[in-house]
C-alpha cells in the first residue's frame, strides 16, 4: 500500500461556539469509495467542504498527495468534482448548456467540452435529454446531470454529499451502480450518507461519524465483525403471520425482531438453537417455511451499537 491519496489529520471545525468536528483523522486511498456515515447534522457535509478546501479547518490539515489542499486550491479545483445533496446546476439551462458552461468554467476548450460532454451523456445515459431544460428532467436524470457536471473536467476525486437522498429504491440502486462504474474508471469517490445499507453495498472503506468524532473507520465487513456478536436470521413463511411467530418465539435468545411485512428479521447470538425453535413452532402456527437466510449483522446494527441511536 502506498501513500494515501487524501489525509485528514487532527482536523477540527468550529462555527462560532459550536464545535462541529473534533480532531478527526482518517485517510482515503486512491480508487477508494469512501463512505462517511452519520446522522443529519453530524458534520458530514462540513468534512466534504474541508476536503475540497471550501472551508478552512479551525485546526488540523487536509492533504492531497501529501500537499496541503489550502495551498493547492487551483489543483484541487481541477482534480476534484463535487456533487451536492440538492444538485448544483442551472435549472433554466439545458443539459448540454450546463455541461458546456461548467466545462468552460473549468477552463476546457470547445473541443474538450464537446468530447467530454458526449462521453458523459452516453455514460450517464442522458443523450436523449441533451437539449432538455434541467428543470424538466426526472429526479434520477437530474442527479445524473449533477454527477455529469462534477465529472466534466474528468476529476481524480469525486465527492458526493448524500447522493441517494430523496431517491426511490430503484433510482438509489441506479446511482450506486453508476458510482461503482465511475470508480471502475479510476475515480476515487468520497460520499456521505445516512443510509447504511447503501454505504455497505458500495463503499470499500467507511467512517462512522458521531458527535463530531469518527467513532469507527475501516471496511464495512471489518467494522461489522468487530462491533457485532449477533447474527441475522431472515425468515420468509406463508401465509406470513409474522406477529404470531414473534409472539411464539418470545424473548429467549432473541435480541430483537424486525417485521418487514414480507419477511421477519431476527437478531440472535445463538442462531442454531433459534432456528430449531422456529422449525418447531411453524407447523403449530400453520405457517409454511418459504425461505430462511442466516447472515452477519448489517452496518445499521453496528451504527446503532456505536452511537446508541437507531437510524
Amino acid at each position, binding site marked *: 500500500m502506498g501513500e494515501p491519496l487524501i489525509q485528514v489529520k487532527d482536523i477540527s471545525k468550529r462555527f462560532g461556539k459550536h464545535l462541529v468536528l473534533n480532531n478527526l483523522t482518517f485517510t482515503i486511498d486512491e480508487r477508494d469509495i469512501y463512505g462517511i456515515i452519520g446522522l443529519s447534522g453530524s458534520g458530514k457535509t462540513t468534512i466534504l467542504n474541508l476536503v475540497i478546501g471550501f472551508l478552512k479547518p479551525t485546526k488540523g490539515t487536509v492533504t492531497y498527495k501529501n500537499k496541503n489542499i489550502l495551498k493547492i486550491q487551483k489543483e484541487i479545483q481541477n482534480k476534484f468534482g463535487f456533487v451536492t445533496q440538492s444538485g448544483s*446546476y*442551472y435549472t433554466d439551462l439545458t443539459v448540454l448548456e450546463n455541461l458546456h*458552461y461548467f466545462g468552460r*468554467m*473549468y*477552463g476546457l476548450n470547445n473541443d474538450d467540452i464537446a468530447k467530454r460532454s458526449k462521453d458523459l451523456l452516453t455514460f450517464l445515459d442522458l443523450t436523449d435529454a441533451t437539449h432538455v431544460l434541467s428543470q424538466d428532467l426526472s429526479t434520477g436524470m437530474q442527479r445524473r446531470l449533477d454527477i455529469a457536471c*462534477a465529472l466534466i473536467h474528468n476529476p481524480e476525486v469525486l465527492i458526493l454529499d448524500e447522493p441517494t437522498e430523496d431517491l426511490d429504491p430503484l433510482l438509489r440502486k441506479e446511482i450506486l451502480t453508476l458510482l461503482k462504474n465511475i470508480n471502475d474508471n479510476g475515480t476515487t469517490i468520497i460520499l456521505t450518507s445516512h443510509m447504511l445499507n447503501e454505504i455497505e453495498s458500495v463503499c470499500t472503506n467507511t467512517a462512522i461519524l458521531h458527535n463530531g468524532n469518527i467513532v469507527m473507520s475501516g471496511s464495512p465487513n471489518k467494522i461489522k465483525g468487530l462491533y457485532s456478536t449477533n447474527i441475522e436470521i431472515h425468515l420468509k413463511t406463508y401465509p406470513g403471520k409474522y406477529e404470531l411467530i414473534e409472539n411464539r418465539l418470545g424473548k429467549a435468545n432473541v435480541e430483537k425482531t424486525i417485521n418487514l411485512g414480507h419477511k421477519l428479521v431476527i437478531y440472535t447470538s445463538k442462531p442454531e438453537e433459534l432456528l430449531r425453535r422456529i422449525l418447531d413452532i411453524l407447523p403449530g402456527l400453520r405457517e409454511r417455511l418459504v425461505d430462511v437466510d442466516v447472515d452477519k449483522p448489517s452496518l445499521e446494527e453496528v451504527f446503532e451499537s456505536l452511537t446508541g441511536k437507531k437510524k
Partner: protein
Amino acid sequence: MNPNNINPKNFFLRLVNIIIKDIKLLIRSKSSALIVILGPLALIFLVGMAFNTTSLYNIKIAAYSESYSELTNSLIENLKDQQYSITQLSSEQECIEGIKLGEYHVCAIFPKDMSVELNNEMIFYVDESRVNLAAIVSNTIFSKVASKSEELSLGLTGELLTTINVVSEEADKNTQQLTTLKDEISNINNNVKDVRENFVGLDLEYNSTNFNFTKIDDEIDEIETDLNVSEGVFSGLRGLIEGTQEQADLLGAKLTSVETQRDSFVSTLDSSRNSLLDFFGKVNTIQSSVDRTKNAIAGIRVTDPEKIVNPITSTVKPVTTNKTHLGFLFPTLVVLVIMFISLLFSASIVIREKRSKAYFRNFITPTNDFTFMLGQFITNLLLVIVELGILFLVALYFFKEELLNVFPTLAVALLVITTVFILIGMFIGHLFNSGETASLGSIAAAFIMLFFSNTILPLETLPGYVTQIVKYNPFVISENIIKRVILFNASFDVIMQPLLFLLGGALIFFVLAFIAREITRRKILF
C-alpha cells in the same frame, strides 16, 4: 486538456460564457424578459404623455365668501379661464375640510363684499403635506390673483395720476393769479402809501393868533379915538370882525377836527397797509406752497402707471430651449430609470445566482471570483444599455436634436452612472440572502437616494449638515451631470470632476460587493 492554462483568451471566453449564461437565464424567465423590454417603453411613454406640457391641469379650487362682490366674481372668472375647476362652498369650514379630505387643492377665502375700496385680504388654504403640489399650486394661484390685483392697481394709479395732473394744472393757474394778486396788493399798498403821504403832507394847522382880531379891535379903538367917534360908529364893523373871528374860530375848530380825522385816517391807512403787507405775506406763502406742490408734482419722475405699479420688472429667462415639464424632467427621469433598473436588476441577478443550485459549483471551479463578478456586471450593463436604448429611442421622438447633439458626452456619462448603480445593486445583492430582502434593500436604497435629492424637495430645504452629506448622493451627482449635458450641452471638461467622483464610488462599491460576496459565501452551505 489543460485546465490550468489561464490566459487572457481563456479569461475572455469564461467571461463571455458567464454573460451568455446570465442572458439565457434572464430570457428564459419570461417575466424578466418582458420587464426588460416593456418596462422602460411603458415608463417613458406614460411619462412622456403625462409631462409633455407646460401647464397645471385639473387643479380643484374651493372658494368661499360671505358675500360675493363683482370683484370676487371677476377673480373667480379669471381663475376659471385658466382651466381650474372652481367650486363655491357655503362656509369657510367646509372649504378647509375639503382641503383636509383632499377634495380640493386650494381653498380661497374672499373677503365679504370685496372691493378695491375695502379690505381685500384673501386667504388661501393649501395642504402643505402635499409639499410639491402645494408650492406649485400656491405659486400659480397667487400669480393669477396677483395679476388681477395688478390690473386693479393700474386702474387706481391711473386715477391718482390724473388727479395729480389736474392739481398740477390748477396750481399753474393759481400761481399766475397769485402773482397778479400780489402785484395788485403791492399797487394798493403803494396807493395807500401815497394817500397816506398826501394825507400826512396836508397842512391843517390853524393858528388863531394869525387872526389878530384884538389888534383889529384895538386899531378900531384907535381909529375911533383918532376919529373921535363914538364907539357905536364902528359897531357894525366890529360886529363883522367878531363874526369873522367866530368863523375863524369855527374854521380853526374844524381844521383841528380834520387834522384829528386825518391822523385817524393815516392810522387807518397804516393799519391797512400792515394788513396788506400781511396779506401779501400770506399770498406769498400760498404761492410758495403752490410752487412747492408744483415742484413736488414736477418732481415725480415716473408718471407711467405701469411703472408705478411695477417699478421693478423681473423676467426669468430660461437658459434652455426646453419648455415642457418633460424637457426639464427628462434628465431626472433618465437617472431615475437607470437607478431603479440597475439596482433592482443587479441585485436580483446576484440573488438569483446566489439562490441558484449552481452557485456552489461556480465557487469550486478554478474560475476566480473577479471573473464571475465582472461577468455579472457586464450582463447587468448590457441589460441597462438595452433598456436605455429603448428609452432613448422613444425619447428621440420628443427631443431628437437635443439628444443627438450631445450623444457622445451623454453616452460616456450614462455608462459611468450605470456602472455606479449596478455596483451598488450588486453590493446589495451580495449583502442579502433572499430575493425579497434584496429587492427591499435595493428599493430602499433607491428611495433614500431619491428622497435626498432635488426631485422631491430642493436640497436647499435640508439642514446644512445633511446637505453636505447629500451632495455625495450618486443620484444627485448623476442628475446634475445629465442635466448639464442634455439641457446645457455641457462638455466633458465640465462634467469630468463629478464623473471621476462617480468612478471612485464605483470602485468602492465593487470592493464592497467583492467583500460581501466573500463574507456571505459560507452561508450557501447551510
